[in-house]
């Protein structure tokens, strides 16, 4: 049985700091996606919201909040949360109900407003919450975790801070003409290297900002798409939402330690490798068939990790690809043609959906000013706190 569903429509609210609330952003994106699909809101049978945990109760129940704001239509509703992987989880929830025959059309929406500065835990003392303890006992911020991964690349594979800066230069160029990107300005390697160090070896410009933003996707069954004359839609071929396998041996935000591999042995794949592996397996598509990737560049160096986790090259070779221009538009396997988080900034529940929007535009040939030529297969990857990763594989 094919697990494919059709992407009938995609839409965004441009990223940035617009001073609106998350509902307005989300509804804007939802209506854009519905308009793109040509499907009427009244025909939507399921609304899945990506939860935002910073916007009061309405954010906790984002699915219902969006459904109400769009005008109650009696659809079923669901709300998903999985940190940065939220959007992909929401897509998986929608896809399952379509594949189970429980609805024909699902609308998936994520939107957020994000405060400035370090993301910090909720107030109150919680001595059994690792996300609280990592701040209290260690002062361990998100960028510090990113920096651990970056430093390993330097000490193990000979990456340099100039390589990391080059990722930013590339992504800034990619996003230059993306109308939904927040930052549309060329950046030089010197700019990156001259910016302040946040957590060694990462500079301020190596680390993505936070932002407001929204993205939405309309999914339908292949039958429904066909009936509406969508003969060759972009299809979701796989959604991977796997958890780690014990022992999880890579230090994972917000933990203070890893599992021990002394007894159980080191798993065949790291957690992040297993995320992509599950997507390829489900789709029956290999990494060599991928035309482009949208990966979660919380830091420049993390993009290099993801390239390897997605098996687009061997471990330790991502810098070689980067230096050869392979991951740039026009290269062998463009990475983050949208400009990535470097140009968007992070809007947690919207981000994984935004990746799917970009891949869809690329596979349709509609990515004006940043089009990957002859794009047939696109993959997304991201990772949230607490063992959440996700990968969505799409093709035409």
């Amino acid at each position, binding site marked *: 049985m094919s697990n494919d569903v059709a992407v009938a429509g995609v839409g965004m609210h441009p990223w940035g700091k617009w001073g609106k609330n998350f509902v307005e952003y989300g509804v804007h994106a939802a209506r854009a996606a519905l308009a793109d699909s040509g499907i009427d809101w009244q025909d939507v049978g399921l609304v899945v919201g990506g939860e935002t945990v910073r916007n009061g109760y309405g954010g906790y129940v984002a699915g219902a909040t969006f459904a109400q704001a769009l005008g109650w239509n009696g659809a079923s509703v669901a709300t998903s949360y999985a940190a940065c992987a939220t959007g992909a989880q929401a897509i998986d929830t929608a896809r399952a109900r379509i594949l189970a025959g429980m609805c024909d059309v699902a609308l998936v929406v994520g939107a957020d407003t994000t405060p400035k500065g370090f993301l910090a835990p909720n107030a109150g003392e919680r001595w059994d919450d690792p996300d609280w303890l990592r*701040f209290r006992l260690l002062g361990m911020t998100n960028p510090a975790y990113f920096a*651990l991964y970056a430093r390993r690349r330097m000490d193990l594979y000979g990456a340099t801070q100039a390589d990391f800066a080059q990722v930013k230069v590339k992504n800034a160029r990619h996003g230059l003409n993306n109308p939904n990107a927040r930052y549309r300005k060329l950046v030089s390697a010197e700019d990156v290297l001259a910016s302040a160090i946040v957590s060694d070896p990462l500079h301020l410009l190596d680390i993505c900002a936070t932002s407001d933003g929204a993205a939405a996707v309309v999914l339908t069954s292949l039958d429904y798409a066909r009936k509406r004359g969508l003969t060759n839609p972009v299809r979701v071929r796989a959604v991977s939402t796997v958890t780690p396998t014990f022992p999880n041996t890579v230090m994972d935000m917000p933990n203070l330690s890893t599992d021990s591999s002394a007894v*159980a042995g080191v798993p065949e794949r790291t957690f992040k490798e297993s995320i992509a592996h599950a997507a390829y397996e489900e789709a029956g598509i290999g990494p060599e068939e991928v035309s482009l990737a949208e990966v979660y560049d919380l830091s420049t160096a993390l993009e290099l990790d993801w390239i390897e986790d997605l098996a687009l090259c061997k471990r330790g070779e991502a810098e070689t690809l980067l230096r050869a221009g392979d991951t740039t538009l026009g290269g062998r396997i463009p990475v983050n043609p949208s400009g990535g988080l470097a140009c968007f900034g992070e809007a947690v529940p919207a981000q994984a959906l935004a990746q799917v929007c970009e891949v869809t535009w690329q596979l349709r040939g509609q990515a004006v000013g940043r089009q990957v030529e002859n794009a047939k297969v696109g993959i997304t990857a991201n990772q949230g706190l607490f063992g959440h990763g996700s990968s969505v594989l799409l093709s035409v």
Partner: protein
Amino acid sequence: MSQTATPAIEGWFTTGPAPALVGSRCTTCATVFFPRTGGFCRNPACSGEEFEGIELSRRGRIWSYTDAQYQPPPPYIPATDPYVPFALAAVELPEGLVVLGQVAGGYGVADLEVGAEAELVVETLYTDDTGDRTIWRWKPVIEMGQEADQ
């Protein structure tokens, strides 16, 4: 550290002359956990429900490291005003797990390298109305010859 120093968190490490992290070992499969665990074994292949407390090795190899150039937000409690940056390291222990920690006072990222040895020490994290509150930290082990270079 004053005489009244107490750990910033209870039961996670010992504070004697050779301080160590305190973990749990499953009496069924021998898997070690830190922080301590209870109830039942998180090795999904094991149905054990009993644990014994153990002190983890005091030395390990640096898995990676970084620093905090900007003051972290609460619940972090800065030790000094103005803020002084500190280094952080993830250290892989012979027990097969990696444990994060701040790096001992006086050491920065220039003193660290992936794969190099580090040893656990206990130092003051901050001071509150009960006195100094202590925490485990990783101190680079400077080998013969290296020391002379510095």
